[in-house]
């Protein structure tokens, strides 16, 4: 579907997320105040009741995540938004969401530091937590947009993926993107794709909530559909939804959950390149840091260095194959990330020792500058 854009709006990233969520069909928000994500909740509180949807400010972050999964199981398209400490609190229920296959979207507007850290300053230090934060093996989709137009479209895509694959999807922003205002042109309604979870066509007596005979994503029935009465549990369960400790069934089901991501990479993966065609010095960067990396690429080119940017929009699952292909043309790669070195491990794992991997990391609340990235680029060129 070709989207046709409407009027330009000048908005902070957090508001862009809320506007896009509603455009994607979101009709439930359960939240808890936390800087720097609170504007998402405030905007949803204003938007949702006007459209017949529901907003609720829960008593804590854990409850916010619980309410979102509950609403989703009852058929809602549900969103929550938080930041580092709140994301930590949400993780147990996030794992529940993966286990019971409840579609929903979780925004983490990342801020600095472990613990309370730097509530009003940006960071990109929750990227590994997004992948591995909740306990046990689980699939993860995490999206890191870098521009507001992209944030708008990726919020819609986050909802679409969560519905299509019946799983929580994480949208990672940071304080810079959340609070920075820039122009967006939201697509006109009806000119972009909205995907809703696949409903079963089985009658109640034939319905199995985790029926895999239709593929790895079981068709859904919201609660209260007459006669269906399905059981939902965070315990390992079989296709009937009831607990099992049968090693074979548990293995099969956990592998299926992973396969929803590994088997749908064509839907999920998204990498953007900037001046990458002829590049021999690569930069790997995502989110707001990638904006500085683009400036660094330009400056490098002005100085005769053939730099190019590899920018994962979908950060998880990690774009190993795409990065491996790109690395073949490179003398070396700079990993610019606003933390003390997290995604660099994935980059190193991907390129092995074929080329040098230079870390450009930072903490302290002041974003990485183009000049700092350029310095690292020069180490390779």
């Amino acid at each position, binding site marked *: 579907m070709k989207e046709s854009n409407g009027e330009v709006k000048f908005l902070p990233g957090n508001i862009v997320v809320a506007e896009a969520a509603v455009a994607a069909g979101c009709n439930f928000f*359960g939240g808890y105040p936390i800087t720097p994500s609170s504007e998402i909740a405030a905007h949803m509180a204003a938007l949702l009741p006007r459209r017949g949807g529901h907003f609720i400010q829960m008593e804590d972050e854990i409850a916010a995540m619980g309410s979102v999964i509950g609403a*989703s199981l009852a058929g809602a398209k549900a969103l929550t938004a938080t930041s580092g400490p709140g994301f930590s609190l949400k993780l147990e229920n996030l794992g529940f969401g993966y286990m019971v296959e409840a579609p929903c979207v979780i925004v983490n507007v990342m801020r600095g530091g472990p613990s309370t850290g730097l509530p009003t300053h940006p960071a990109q230090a929750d990227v590994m937590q997004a992948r591995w934060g909740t306990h046990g093996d689980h699939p993860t989709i995490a999206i890191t947009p870098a521009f507001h137009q992209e944030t708008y479209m990726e919020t819609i895509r986050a909802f679409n993926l969560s519905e299509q694959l019946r799983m929580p999807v994480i949208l990672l922003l940071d304080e810079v993107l959340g609070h920075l205002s820039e122009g967006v042109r939201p697509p006109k309604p009806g000119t972009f794709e909205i995907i809703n979870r696949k409903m079963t066509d089985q009658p109640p007596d034939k319905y199995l909530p985790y029926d895999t005979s239709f593929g790895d994503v079981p068709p859904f029935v919201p609660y209260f559909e007459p006669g269906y009465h399905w059981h939902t549990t965070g315990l390992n369960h079989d296709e009937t939804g009831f607990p099992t400790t049968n090693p074979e069934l548990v293995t099969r089901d956990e592998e299926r959950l992973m396969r929803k991501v590994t088997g749908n990479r064509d839907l999920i993966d998204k990498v953007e390149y900037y001046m990458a065609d002829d590049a021999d010095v690569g930069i790997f960067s995502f989110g707001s840091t990638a904006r500085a990396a683009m400036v660094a690429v330009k400056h490098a080119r002005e100085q005769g260095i053939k730099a190019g940017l590899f920018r994962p929009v979908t950060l998880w699952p990690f774009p190993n194959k795409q990065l491996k292909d790109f690395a073949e043309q490179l003398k070396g790669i700079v990993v610019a990330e606003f933390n003390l070195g997290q995604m660099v491990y994935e980059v190193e794992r991907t390129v092995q020792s074929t080329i040098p991997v230079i870390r450009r990391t930072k903490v302290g609340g002041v974003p990485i500058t183009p000049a700092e990235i350029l310095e690292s680029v020069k180490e390779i060129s």
Partner: protein
Amino acid sequence: MPFDYMTYLREEKLPHMWCPGCGIGIVVKAMIHTFTDLEWDPSDIAIISGIGCTSRAPGYMDMNTLHTTHGRALSFATGIKMHRHDKHVVVIAGDGDMSAIGGNHLIHAARRNININVIVNNNNIYGMTGGQYSPTTPLGAKAATAPYGNLEPSFDLVELVKGAGASFVARGHVGNGRQLNTILKKAFDHKGFSFVEVVSNCHTQFGRRNKMADPMNMISWISDRAKPMKKFEALSDEDKTRCFPVGVIHEDVSRPEYTETYQELIDSLNNGN
């Protein structure tokens, strides 16, 4: 009306996993009795639980059933009730689940006065994890983690929830199933947040450590201490510390129900504004 087990139970899931003589079965029976009395269509009921022996109850009930994370049943229930306020949302959990790890959700659901019916099977112990003391374990009672007797004062859940603003608060016990049916019927019929504490027996984990390994001994111990409000009030101060009042303890039908209030907001925003 006769019991209608077939409508509300998943027969094929029986036998249940509880110890013979466990009080949870009495609570489930009273719930089914109430659903039957009120003629609730099972498709219109969502029953949500947390983690623990009590929280396994929904698995046996033939309706929309959700077995959530430890302590969080009410948060999931709130999301469900907000999205489908036309449906019945019932929460059942144990004392540890609901008043320790889930205590925050309990007081806030009560404060909002959202139309969720909560039943706490209070057996004064963590049963499933092996008999650790809970916020309702009596002072001095023995538990796996209180081998020398519990040093912590205990919660009065009814007073706690009433204090948090619940519009319906009641207490029953497993020694009087008929009374429990009456209480549950009033609670489920109430518009707004309703809370029913059922004083129950875990002879396996609590009784065994406190000289009541036989379920009947424990149920007698409970029944002897249960007093209707009027009788309870007439007791001496000393007797009051040993006994507990049963029946409907607080009921306020004047408070607005939360999802209705929210619906009024939706309607007002969409009518010419």
